[in-house]
Structure formats: C-alpha cells, structure tokens
C-alpha cells in the first residue's frame, strides 16, 4: 500500500513538472552528432525549419554512447514529449522495447523499421538517389573508373553502393566501380584519415569520381579528392559548398522533410511504414551554383529522364536490402 502511494505520488509530481513541456516534439540524433554536415544535421535543419515557421519549440539530444539510446527515448517519453523522433537504424532495437511501454506517445524512427501501432517508420529509397549520382559519375568519369567509400559496412550503406554502381554502369557499360568500407564499428563514421587513405588507394586504381557515404569520414574523402584533383560526390545534405567546383554533386536524402512532416503532424500522425522514395521527394541530387559548371546539359538531361522513369515506376533500381545482393559486383 505504502509502495503504491509512493508511486502515485511520484507520478503526480512528474505530471506536474512536465506539464509545461507537454506535447512539444523531441529529436534524438544518432552517434554521428548533430552537426555531422550530413544525416543528423539534416534532421536538425528540418526541426529548425519547423520551429521557425510555427514558433514551436523542440528538445533534442546527441547520443554520446551506445548505452544512452534506450535511456534517451525513455527520458523524452517519460517527460511527456510527443512525438519523439529519432534518427538512425541503430535506434530500432531500443525503440522496440520502449515504444511498447508508452502507448500514448507517438514515436518516429528514421532509417529503421519498428512494427508497433504507435511508431512511424520512415525509410528512404537511398538506392534511387544513389542511382542518379552514379549516373552522373558514370558520365563524368574519363578513366572509366569510379569509386565508393562507405562508412560502417551495413546493409543500408551497401544499398547506397549498389544503387551507385547500377547508375554508373547504366551511364557507361565500361565503367568499373571500386567499393570500400571504412570499418565495421560506429568509429567508421568518424575517421577522416582512414577515409582519405582509402580514397588515395582508389585514385591509384584509376578512380576519378568518388562517392562518400560515410558521415564524418566523408570529410576526409572529399578533402583527398580535392588534394588530388578528382571529383567527389557528397551525401545526405547538400555538400557541394564544401569545395565549390570540385564536388560533382551530392546525393540528398531529405531527412529534414521527414522530421518536418513528423513535427507538423504532431502526436496524432499516421503511423506505420513511410517510404520516402524519389517520387515522394525523399531522395534526389544537388544542383546548385557550386557545381553548375561540372554538370553538362547532356548529363542534366540524362539524369532528369532517369528521374522521371524511376518516379513513374518504369525503371526499377534494385535495393540491396531486399535480397542482400547486388546485380553489379561491388566487392
């Protein structure tokens, strides 16, 4: 009895203290960090845009270690934040545990799938966006060698590689695609030195366009590409501005739109699986003043016709995740 009373008291105190924060959305960034100039930063951009447009407020947290994942979700749910949005495939496992405990809170996971009634799972068709930049790479290469530097070797990143290879080969059958991954642990997202060395190795194999899908490691890849005078392709956010005139394009993954729409729809949003594909504006390629002179009219025409074909469903880009294999050899 005494124990129950204690619990009731605690709940009451909790309810009182969290009253102010009720129904504000919250955002949890994955280990790459809020300002990775890539995936997580896009999530932040989307949230900021929502806050500026609506005058609303949101809370966010950067994870520092694997152990914080479940704790962070639980803390936000416990304090009444709703919806709670999180980025990264690694959040799926902890979310599965926590979401069941808070049926009244709506959770959104980006890049992962959790099959629970109060979870919206947003996944992107990375292979389609990668196909487009692969197409550009295949047209831009003069040596018939293009390369790919992945971060952590996981199916998601392999899907990038596979889409990229399909695009490059579609543009130019002769093209050879060199694929490397930085590592197999989360440290692979933050090792620019390794990224730079891998790029150097690829350049010595003849690559003259390199696509980095590697979070913070990509900074080193792009830098090495500039140092050695080859073209590079950025990922997730528009990274063309990092080295104007030397970044061919960026494969954009509109995490910002996913976060924005989740924040805007609020707790009552439609849950379930949301696929952000090319047709839905979930992925695309960056075309701005920084790379304008690198993209010829011919390339622009080819990529936009591919874009239409994919959106209309006439051209299917194979997804590595569907059967763990790729029609083009990317080993």
């Amino acid at each position: 009895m005494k124990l129950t009373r204690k619990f009731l008291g605690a709940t009451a105190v909790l309810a009182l203290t969290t009253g102010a924060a009720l129904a504000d959305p919250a955002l949890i960034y994955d280990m790459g960090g809020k300002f990775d100039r890539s995936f997580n930063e896009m999530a932040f951009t989307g949230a900021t845009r929502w806050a500026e447009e609506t005058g609303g407020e949101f809370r966010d947290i950067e994870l520092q270690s694997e152990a914080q994942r479940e704790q962070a979700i639980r803390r936000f749910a416990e304090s009444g934040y709703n919806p709670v949005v999180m980025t990264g495939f690694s959040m799926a496992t902890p979310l599965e545990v926590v979401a069941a405990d808070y049926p009244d809170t709506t959770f959104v996971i980006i890049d992962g799938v959790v099959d629970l009634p109060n979870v919206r799972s947003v996944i992107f068709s990375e292979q389609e966006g990668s196909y487009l930049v692969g197409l550009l790479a295949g047209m831009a290469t003069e040596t018939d060698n293009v390369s790919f530097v992945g971060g952590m070797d996981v199916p998601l990143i392999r899907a990038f590689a596979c889409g990229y290879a399909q695009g490059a080969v579609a543009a130019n059958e002769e093209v050879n695609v060199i694929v490397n991954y930085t590592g197999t642990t989360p440290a692979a997202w933050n090792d620019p030195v390794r990224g730079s060395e891998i790029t150097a190795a690829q350049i010595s194999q003849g690559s003259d366009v390199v696509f980095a899908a590697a979070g913070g490691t990509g900074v080193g890849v792009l830098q090495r590409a500039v140092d050695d005078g080859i073209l590079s392709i950025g990922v997730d956010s528009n990274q063309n501005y990092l080295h104007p005139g030397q970044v061919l394009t960026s494969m954009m993954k509109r995490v910002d739109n996913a976060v924005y729409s989740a924040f805007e729809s609020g707790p009552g949003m439609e849950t379930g699986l949301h696929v952000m594909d090319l047709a839905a504006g979930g992925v695309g390629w960056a075309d701005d003043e920084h790379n304008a002179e690198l993209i010829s009219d011919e390339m622009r025409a080819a990529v936009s016709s591919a874009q239409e074909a994919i959106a209309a469903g006439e051209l299917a880009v194979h997804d590595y995740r569907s059967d763990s294999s790729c029609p083009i050899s990317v080993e």
Partner: protein
Amino acid sequence: MDIVTIVQILDSTLRLATPLLFACLAGIISERAGIFDIGLEGKLLIAAFFSAAYAHYSGSAWIGLGAGVLASVVFSLFHGIASITFRGNQLISGVAINFLASGMTVVIAQSWFRQGGRTPSLTGDQRFPSLDLPGAEAVQGVPVIGQIYGEILTDHGILVYVGLLCVPLTWYVLYRTRFGLRLRAVGENPAAVDTAGVSVVRMRYAAIVIAGVLCGIGGAYLSTSLAAGFVREMSAGRGFIALAAMIFAKWRPWQGLGAVLLFGMLEAIANRFPNLDLGFITLPSQFMTALPYILTVIILAGFVGKAIPPRAGGEPYVKER
C-alpha cells in the same frame, strides 16, 4: 600484384605509420621510465584538436603544431601529477585522460567554432605542405631506388620525416646518454637511482614531458597534415594500436619503427583490398584490421620471444624512510 600497387601501398604505409610512430616512441620513453601511459590516445586527440584550432586562427601550421604540443604536454602533466606526485594508479589516470580528451575536444570545438565539435576545414598554409626530397625527381627513372626514394619516401608532410628522425634520436638518448641510462634505471629499479642521488620524480616528469611532446607532434600530424581539420574522435584508436606496437617492439625504438610500419602496412593493405585474395584463401579487410592486436597477444603470450615490461612499470615510487 603489380609494382604500382606495391608502391602505392608502401607510400600509404608511411603516412599511416607516422602517427603510430610518434605515439609508440612516446609510450617507449614513458614506460621505460616506469610510467604506464595508456593516455596516448587522449593526448593524440587533444593535440589534433588544438593544432587544427590554432592553425585555423593563426593561419600557420607551425603555430598549430606548437599549440598541439603544448596541449599534449599539459595532459602529460595531469598524468604526472596524478601518478607521480600523488602516486595514483597510472592506468586509471590514463583512462581519465582518454575520456577527458574525448569530451573536452568536442565541447571546446563546439563553443569556439559552432560546427558541431569540429574545426573549420584548413586550407593553404594552415596545413603542412608535402615536402619533395632533394633529387627525388632525378632518380625517378632508376629502377628500385627510383621507386623507393623517388616515389615512396618523397612527397610527404614534413612531420613524416621528423618522425623518422625521432627514431635514431630516441635510440641515442635512451642508450648512449647519461640521461637515458638514468631514465631506464628509473623504470627498472628506482630505489637504486634514488640511492645514487638522482631524483626519481624529476626523471619521471622529464620522461612524460618528452612523451607529451612526441604525442603532440603525432596529433598535429593527424589533423594538419593527413587530414584538413579536426573531427571528433579522429584519433580512432591509433593510440591503442601504438601501445600494441610498443609491446610488439618490446619497448625498443628501432623495433618500434618496424612494428608501426608493419601495422601501418596492414592498414594500408586493408584499405587497398577489401577482400585480399591469396589464391587459396580470401581474407576480409577486418582480419587485417584485427591483426595488430592478434600479433600483440601472440607476443604477450610468449610464443615469439618474451615481452618483459620495465620492472618498476606501473609502481609509484615511495622513498623509504
């Protein structure tokens, strides 16, 4: 495997081995004086950050190097105060240094640059330029020498050569000077050194300051020569691989050079060949990445010779009363 690939791998080996080399020599000097130093990783990281930050502010990679070395020495002194003056546990103090560096770099970077725990990208003079060795162009046509001198050894950041020069220097200091003799004695039998009227505490502080300077150069090399700026956790475990190299080399400088070159080459091979096909077996790159640790365990287990650490290592020295 053709000759171009081999040249490229050896070229990459030299670049990848340099940060390991600095950290490894730092570890050798520190541990020879009886101070276990698992904070190498943290010192590399803090030096990488301060070098990049001050190279950015000042526009000169050399000022950045100075700042990095200073930061690394300050961290060494933390370690010294905790483990020499206050006789704390050296391993715990080292772990603390690693944690402190990991957190502090990101916090300071965020408050200074507001780019999420990284420094702005360095350009021009803010990075160390590549140095062409004299005559490298001329010998390029000559077989073997042309490849070794004209392609592998030349065209690296100046700190690579500093690192290579530090090896004979460390050897000379450790084995051919009075200071080195005392330093090694402090790590084996501090009581004897004390009896001879030499201050154990002062010797040990000298050792860790030298270790701090070496780590500082290694960190500066990471952020201002290899990469172009600081990214959080950019040392990525190199301090620990250096520790492994130090044990592998049984605390000797020349062998240390061999060990870091071997470990650097393993990494370069892993970067070049995601799956190394040896004809009868295909080795995944993960195996190459794990090899340094596997080799170290084999050495430690005593299968190939025996790795005996300095006898007084890890023990704070207490004067008898």
